[in-house]
């Protein structure tokens, strides 16, 4: 495995696997992350996987970067690319009705598909969580078919509601909180991805899979009501 060790200062080491958004690369990155977790290297604080790399946060008082690289090399040599036991599959409700999907027609037009066909793509795809970022709990998920490889808007729209499911550039995100976005809103999910009422507020982790199932507006509201009352609503299944 040809990787580059790129310093992110004296408290971070970026292990770069490539440049592109690619499931093969991501499998390797997740496998290294799991191996680093299992190795419990003294001085490693946490790791952050992204499309292209694994960032290893470390404490230079406990381990120097040169020594850390030597600890990582044997792990890299033995990656099996198997993330069993390190990821969860989630079945999340999605509503396409009413004001949940203001950009669904635009997306359908762009892709030369009908609204129903776009809905079928969203519910028929197993969305892979490449990474989280931008806001606490926000997943970047892939991969949508080429037809849905839509560019972002040139300027962002303010106040995109919490729970919005958005697509652009072949990827899908779900907004854990109200934020601006240049992506296109195709649906809304009533299950919170970041809930400060819980001891563990973030729902998703890198490597997880998300499958959407369509619900009516009435069902969406019923689920939102249960969420309001503290019902966890969904349970993940280990992969």
């Amino acid at each position: 495995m040809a990787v580059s060790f790129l310093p992110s200062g004296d408290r971070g080491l970026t292990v770069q696997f490539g440049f592109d958004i690619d499931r093969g690369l991501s499998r390797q990155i997740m496998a290294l992350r799991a191996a680093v977790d299992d190795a419990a290297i003294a001085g490693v604080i946490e790791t952050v996987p992204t499309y292209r790399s694994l960032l290893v946060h470390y404490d230079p008082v406990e381990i120097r970067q040169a020594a850390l690289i030597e600890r990582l090399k044997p792990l890299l040599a033995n990656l099996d690319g198997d993330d069993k036991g390190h990821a969860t599959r989630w079945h999340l409700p999605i509503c396409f009705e009413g004001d949940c999907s203001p950009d669904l027609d635009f997306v359908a037009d762009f892709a030369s598909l009908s609204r129903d066909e776009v809905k079928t793509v969203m519910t028929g795809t197993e969305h892979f969580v490449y990474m989280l970022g931008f806001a606490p709990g926000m997943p970047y998920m892939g991969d949508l078919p080429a037809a849905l490889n839509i560019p972002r808007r040139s300027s962002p729209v303010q106040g995109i509601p919490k729970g919005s499911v958005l697509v652009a550039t072949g990827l899908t995100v779900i907004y854990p909180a109200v934020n601006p976005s240049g992506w296109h809103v195709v649906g809304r999910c009533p299950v919170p991805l970041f809930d400060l009422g819980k001891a563990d507020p973030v729902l998703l982790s890198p490597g997880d899979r998300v499958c959407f199932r369509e619900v009516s507006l009435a069902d969406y509201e019923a689920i939102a009501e249960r969420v309001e009352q503290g019902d966890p609503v969904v349970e993940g299944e280990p992969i």
Partner: protein
Amino acid sequence: MMPALEVIEPGLMTTIQDLGRFGHQAQGVPSSGALDAGNLRLANALVHNAEGLGALEMRILGPTFKVTAGTVRIALTGTEGGIEISGGPVAFVPAYRSVVLKAGQSFRIGRMSDSAVCYLAVEGGFDLPMIYGSQSTYVSGRFGGFEGRTLQRGDLLPLCLEEASDKPVALCSEPLLYQQSGPIRVVPGPQDDYFDEAALRAFQSQVYHISAESNRMGLRLLGEPIAHAKGADINSDGIVTGSIQVPGSGLPIILLADHQTTGGYPKIATVASADLARLGRMVPGTPLQFRMVSVEEAETAAIALETHLRSLIETLVMPSDEQELLDHLLMSKSLISGPIVD
């Protein structure tokens, strides 16, 4: 009545911070935490706390508080100023020394002349919820600290202790010394290869200034734009505190404690962690230059700073009586910038 500090004046930007929120950056949760972690640790040590407890981080113009009940031990660090006290026998206590105040007394941290941030710790800490093991306030995420925001007039900050302990007053014989001048040390990468030699030279040779549009997320720099050799966008990778990203404008942004966990701009270099507090302490308009160092040099600087801080904390002076305290204060005149009444 619940023991608390009542906010009489909130100051410019006062938040609860500790050493940060770690372990969930992979889930997009920023670390946050004190911009000047060394002085936060020192403030906690001065009030006999564990070093990483949540304390007040104050920016540029400090707040005024009133003690609502019982007694509370407080200490200020990170500035040469001090605590102005009303309603008691002592009118002023310099920074780097703890003092116990009673219900009804109020105290004020004025305008800071020597730093953008300073810290005030209370013995026992604040009785506020932990999120992922930290009380740090993440203002843009609206969580952590006191209701996820900067303090406002009328807030009541609940204290863990009803009364200060009977432990002695503590003093620090010298302030925490960060490297006082000279360029900010940076380690090249992880995307220094997105810039050609001319851009790397311009980055290291020019004098930048800190823009007024800077905050706890990052310091925006003003200067001559530098050009990208391979474009200004990358597929996102992870960010550390001190990452220096260069967006399309060509003007660097140094990411600080509230930075997002990942980002899509090339990062030309990363600030040596030993110099992060220097940056956190800089007010808008401050000039700064960069100097490239190796990872090993930056690590050695980090270890030296940690050793210095440990020795300061381990040699805190705890005078056994009033006379010894007075003698000590008279001997270390450099720390006294106001009248001592006791």
